[in-house]
């Protein structure tokens, strides 16, 4: 075997608490990576995956120190090098592509200046050569008009373009290894799929080794040759991607895979009970024992070793035991015939025409959301999917009264209007519509105890006080599967999943008729997400509340929704029963979205149908998807609003193509004209 490019030997590192107690974050991690190979590191938050990756560059976040072991990169011990020698390697032979390029690019420096800085440090070129090389690098990452891009500031690029610029910067020093820390997290699915395909090609072209850190099995399946699954600072399992994803051996890997919602499998994924051990705690047995369905007595007596099984390594004493079945549970919604909510021809605009605009009779801006029309029955869940800017959250905010509607009507069950803002709604109306926010962290007051947080809606809507409120709050916590002792805690003392449960309990304290769920699981780990989805489903059966469930994740929406609406640029493209929307015939946009979804399966390639262009505002007339549509017919798409085509039982597609044509297989991706592309990214 050839000498590995990166070799991590028994690396332990962590923080040292006051009094000298060591809190390990990595516990004896050993990994090898050959030149040109791609290693995926997966794990949930707190598993130490990013820490391992940064350690490969000899970088520790502040407060951390190495307890033992070493990292050898290209024959050099990274932690034994002088700071100067390490700096010479960083950004040169081993370069980082950061998670959030938007924040990792310095806002006051032009893209070209930042790439030039890397070149100056790691390449022996004069100023003119460097300027040429900057443009060459930007062209290599396939950015349109690279010379112009070099002159732009980071905020003038879209999210996908920023990520490409970060890749160009990483390539400046002729890297042998690229470290990718969740580089596509936070990007839209279509953008993510395009960037991943680009990175795959790049790895092949340049022959560079890649370490790809992600929490997303679908992403790892697409890019990695080998996968390392991290749990509690240890490797739980390591092996060839196909082996690990197709035949996982560690119960944690199996649980993780089972908790991922899948596009083609309706129903709720199986959740994993419990939480991982706290970061920095001491281990006396298997770290996964408390959550393991096949746990045995000997699991708790000593920390299991990593054992080789075929091409893989597994840290489990009982990896040969058959796994417990983890069935998907099917939702059994109790949908009544009575209406809970109706939106009729709703339009929403964030910009009101100002005094000057009216004075000079400037043309009114196209509304952000338009022609939204749907009804929600009691006990039903409507999923809203779409990429960022699709208007899905805006619609929720309008129902909640946080943003005004420009036209159309929003009404509750018996026709009570919801057109007034939240500040002018009466108490009963407020009670009937509740919202659960994406970021539980930001939506819970950090200075209030859970009892106070839950007490507020109980007092406000039900007049409960003292012991009565206390008893009800305990019931609510029990309903979201949290112990009653949590009442005296503050949000800061809870984990992300627990906080989201409190957010759910607070919404249900009002006993709402309509619950608005805004990306409620996006910030959660998959295993926690599965539990949260199961919780929402159970509460709906018990309370008969109707949900509007907003998410960018098609598989999650499929798992919890009875009906689904696909939105693009604030207009409905397709709406209907979940099973019908997720099967042909598709709206071209639905098809594009579905094609870009990454399944945790190494043998499924995404089908990229349209360019990943970020559109800043909806087109003034015609079909919202006209500029990116792979099946565009012609001028009619630009000028005339597409008709509603009823496919079957309430399945409606807004498209100029007729039902038979829509049912046909998609054609090849038409090449976009460069002029049009430049127009869209906004010169």
């Amino acid at each position, binding site marked *: 075997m050839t000498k590995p490019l990166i070799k991590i030997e028994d690396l332990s590192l962590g923080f040292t608490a006051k009094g000298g107690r060591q809190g390990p974050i990595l516990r004896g991690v050993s990994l090898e990576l050959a030149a040109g190979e791609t290693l995926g590191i997966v794990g949930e938050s707190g598993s130490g995956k990013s820490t391992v990756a940064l350690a490969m560059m000899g970088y520790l976040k502040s407060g951390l120190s190495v307890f033992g072991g070493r990292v050898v990169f290209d024959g050099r011990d990274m932690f034994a090098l002088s700071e100067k020698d390490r700096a010479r390697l960083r*950004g040169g032979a081993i370069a980082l592509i950061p998670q*959030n390029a938007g924040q990792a690019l310095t*806002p006051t420096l032009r893209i070209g200046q930042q790439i030039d*800085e890397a070149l100056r440090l790691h390449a022996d070129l004069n100023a003119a050569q460097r300027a040429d090389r900057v443009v060459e690098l930007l062209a290599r990452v396939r950015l349109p008009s690279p010379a112009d891009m070099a002159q732009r500031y980071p905020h003038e690029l879209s999210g996908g373009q920023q990520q490409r610029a970060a890749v160009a910067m990483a390539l400046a020093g002729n890297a042998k290894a690229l470290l990718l820390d969740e580089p596509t997290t936070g990007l839209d699915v279509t953008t993510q799929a395009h960037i991943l395909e680009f990175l795959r090609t790049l790895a092949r072209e340049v022959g560079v080794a890649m370490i790809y850190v992600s929490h997303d099995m679908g992403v790892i399946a697409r890019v990695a040759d080998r996968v390392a699954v991290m749990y509690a600072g240890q490797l739980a399992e390591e092996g060839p991607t196909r082996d690990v994803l197709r035949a996982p051996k560690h119960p944690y890997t199996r649980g993780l895979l089972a908790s991922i919602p899948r596009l083609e499998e309706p129903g709720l994924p199986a959740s994993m009970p419990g939480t991982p051990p706290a970061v920095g705690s001491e281990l006396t047995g298997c770290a996964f024992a408390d959550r393991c369905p096949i746990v045995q007595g000997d699991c708790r007596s000593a920390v299991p070793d990593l054992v080789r099984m075929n091409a893989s390594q597994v840290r489990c004493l009982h990896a040969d035991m058959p796994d417990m079945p983890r069935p998907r549970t099917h939702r059994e919604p109790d949908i009544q015939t009575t209406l809970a909510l109706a939106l009729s021809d709703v339009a929403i605009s964030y910009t009101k025409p100002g005094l000057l605009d009216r004075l000079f009779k400037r043309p009114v801006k196209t509304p952000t959301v338009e022609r939204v029309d749907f009804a929600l029955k009691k006990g039903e869940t409507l999923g809203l999917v779409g990429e960022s800017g699709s208007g899905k959250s805006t619609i929720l905010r309008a129902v909640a009264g946080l943003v005004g509607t420009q036209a159309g009507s929003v009404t509750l069950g018996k026709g009570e209007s919801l057109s007034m803002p939240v500040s002018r709604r009466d108490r009963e109306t407020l009670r009937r519509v509740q919202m659960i926010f994406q970021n539980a962290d930001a939506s819970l007051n950090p200075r209030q105890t859970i009892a106070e947080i839950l007490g507020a809606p109980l007092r406000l809507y039900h007049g409960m006080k003292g012991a009565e409120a206390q008893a009800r709050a305990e019931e609510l916590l029990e309903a979201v599967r949290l112990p009653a002792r949590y009442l005296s805690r503050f949000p800061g003392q809870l984990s992300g999943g627990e906080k989201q449960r409190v957010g759910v309990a607070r919404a249900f304290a009002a006993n709402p008729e309509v619950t608005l769920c805004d990306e409620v699981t996006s910030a959660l780990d998959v295993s926690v997400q599965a539990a949260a989805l199961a919780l929402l489903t159970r509460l709906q059966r018990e309370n008969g509340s109707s949900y509007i469930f907003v998410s960018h994740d098609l598989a999650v929406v499929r798992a919890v929704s009875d009906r689904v609406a696909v939105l693009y640029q604030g207009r409905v493209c397709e709406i209907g029963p979940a099973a019908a929307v997720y099967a042909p015939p598709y709206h071209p946009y639905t098809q594009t979205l579905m094609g870009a979804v990454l399944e945790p399966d190494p043998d499924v390639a995404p089908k990229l149908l349209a360019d990943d262009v970020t559109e800043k505002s909806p087109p003034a007339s015609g079909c919202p998807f006209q500029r990116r549509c792979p099946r565009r017919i012609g001028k009619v798409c630009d000028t005339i609003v597409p008709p509603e085509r009823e496919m079957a039982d309430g399945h409606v597609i807004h498209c100029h193509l007729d039902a038979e044509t829509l049912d046909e297989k998609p054609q090849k991706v038409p090449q976009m004209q460069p002029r049009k592309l430049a127009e869209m990214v906004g010169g």
Partner: protein
Amino acid sequence: MPSLILRRIGFAAFTIAFVSMIMFAAVEALPGNVCTSFLQRFAQGPRLERCIEQQGLDRPALVRYGEWVSGAVQGDFGYSLKKRKPINELIRERFRNTALLGGIAALIAIPLAIFLGIVAGVRRDRPLDLSLSGAAMLAMTIPEFVTATALIYVFAITLQWFPAVTILPPNAGLMQMLPNIVLPVLVLSAVLIAHIMRMMRASVIDVMTSDYVQMARLKGVPERQIIRKHVVPNAMIPALNVIALTIAWLLAGVVVVEKVFNYPGLGTLMIQAIFDRDLPLVQAIALIFSVIYVGVNLLADLAALALDPRLRRKGH
């Protein structure tokens, strides 16, 4: 870009116009008029009539406001009641003295405070930072008249290096002024430095923990270059507003400090004018202060525009 600058300048001009209206209206709203409040119990007979004629109070308020503004734009602020002189004659030299005092204080304090703030932020929680931050805290808590008294005691009375108060003929030259401004400048800069340094330190610390600074480190950029190219320009942006606000404070601080040191500046003149109920003079000085205030904020806005490309977008 030029339209953005023009827009800010236009906005500043509008603010000054608005302030002048309020100041004029406030005096109009007082019971009686400029003359009755000045003359008090002597406000009767020919004395009052003469005053009213001289101040032109027999004409409508709108006309008088128009004259006041057009006069002020040309540097003519009218006629002082107490001193019986044109106001611009009274304030010309006072303005120079105050500008000298405030200008030198700002010129020393602002660059020094920015530098110290960067040093403290970069060396966060180390001994240097702790002593700088501690000193800043002290300088902020002690009122300037206390600092001034303490400095007078040490440097003027005990050491006798500088004069304790300014005793100079009215038309003293610059060189004669210089020894007199050392102590007032020290008092003013102490507070200026403290405020700006603390803001700059917090801002530097914030930027030092940002993703882009970590990224620069992982790019292999040497630490000095990180601070120069990635940290300082970004840390300056939020600090600019505080600098502008602190200079606004300087205007109020000048009044107190001038009084303590008996320094012949606009501040002492204003206090005197208030005691004399010489409203035209008070109005004139207040207008000058507000023009300086708005001007400084305008400069901070333009500097932010130069530093932060995100502000240069259209529609902002």
